[in-house]
């Protein structure tokens, strides 16, 4: 069926674009977010010990370590692969992005978990 191949190709192109550029932009965002503390630690002349950072990071991991893994697992079925890169770069997922995505889906009458739902949440986020 030519119609089916058309849908298949269009969605394939969408998946390729969003996963490639989602990853690239997320990596750049990650680099910028780490550049700020890296500057303070290594170049500002402040005396910040690496061991102190590791201790602080350890304390954070004890509290948030499980959430780092569980949140991406929980939100994946809701967001779909493409929006994962948006949501986890932008943050404020549960209090802002998920409600926005849900309301967009409900406004145009599509269901979460479908491809239409995925496009609606991409636009809303």
């Amino acid at each position, binding site marked *: 069926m030519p119609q089916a191949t058309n849908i298949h190709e269009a969605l394939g192109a969408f998946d390729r674009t969003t996963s490639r550029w989602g990853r690239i932009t997320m990596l750049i965002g990650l680099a910028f977010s780490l550049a700020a503390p890296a500057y303070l630690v290594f170049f500002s002349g402040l005396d910040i010990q690496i061991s102190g950072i590791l201790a602080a990071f350890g304390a954070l991991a004890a509290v948030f370590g499980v959430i780092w893994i569980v949140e991406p697992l929980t939100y994946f079925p809701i967001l779909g692969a493409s929006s994962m890169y948006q949501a986890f770069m932008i943050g404020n997922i549960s209090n802002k992005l998920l409600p926005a995505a849900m309301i967009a889906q409900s406004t145009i009458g599509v269901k979460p978990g479908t491809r239409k739902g995925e*496009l609606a949440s991409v636009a809303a986020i």
Partner: protein
Amino acid sequence: MRRSPPKAWEFRPAPAGPGWNSFKDWQLSMKLSAAVPAVVDNNSTDILAVANSPILWACAIGVFLVIVLQSLIYMKAAKTAAPHIGMSQEDVSTSFKAGAISALGPSLAVVLVAIALLTVFGTPTVLVRIDLIGSVSYETAAAAIAAKSAGAELGGPTYTQAVFGLALAAMSLGGAMWMIATLILTPLLKRGDSALRKVNPAVMTVVPGAAMIAAFMVLGIGELPKSALHIVAFASSAVIMTLLMLLARWLQASWIKEWALGIAILLSLAITYFAGRI
């Protein structure tokens, strides 16, 4: 501790006054601050001297631009794909608008917290960590935990420039873990997701709805034991949201759905405020 320590990275002209009238004095003071910049900076509680540095601003602008770039690429991809799966351009635009309007209420809440934290973290850090890529509930807790691990407290006399640097490093690394987990897990989950869709497509329409209800119930119920006012806020916003959704269906007015979240947040805030005064 000195009141106004010279910063190693900042060029300051010599202030006029006794003892500062010769170039030699100024040179000497520059030499001193260059020789012991670490001691002077580390113990200063003048956080903003470091927190508002141009380099932190440059990083904040970089983060902002990369989010804009991502949004443009994603929006274009969604608009290109939409007609092929029976979705009109109008549907995409409506989703975009609904997302923007729905974000108003939550954004207002985020901005209020952000303003309160401006003097603690400085503008560029608040922009990045609270508004742009962090989340309002995680970052402050993370910074407090990091400061505590160094025996200090946010905003207090122990909150020196060095502690600020440590807190920023820790919360940025912690925030980075979400991104790293996402970068690793998403391709793996996608493979499982496509396999599951082929086996049983119905499951993939039920799972997201169930996951969403579960996620919000866990978040909401976690707040309930904190105080009676938390219960008032939870219950009133739930009732208002339900009423607005029913109203939208009854009047067939989809604009009510778009504004529902903002209205529910504001009304339940007001109700909780008055309940607190009774």
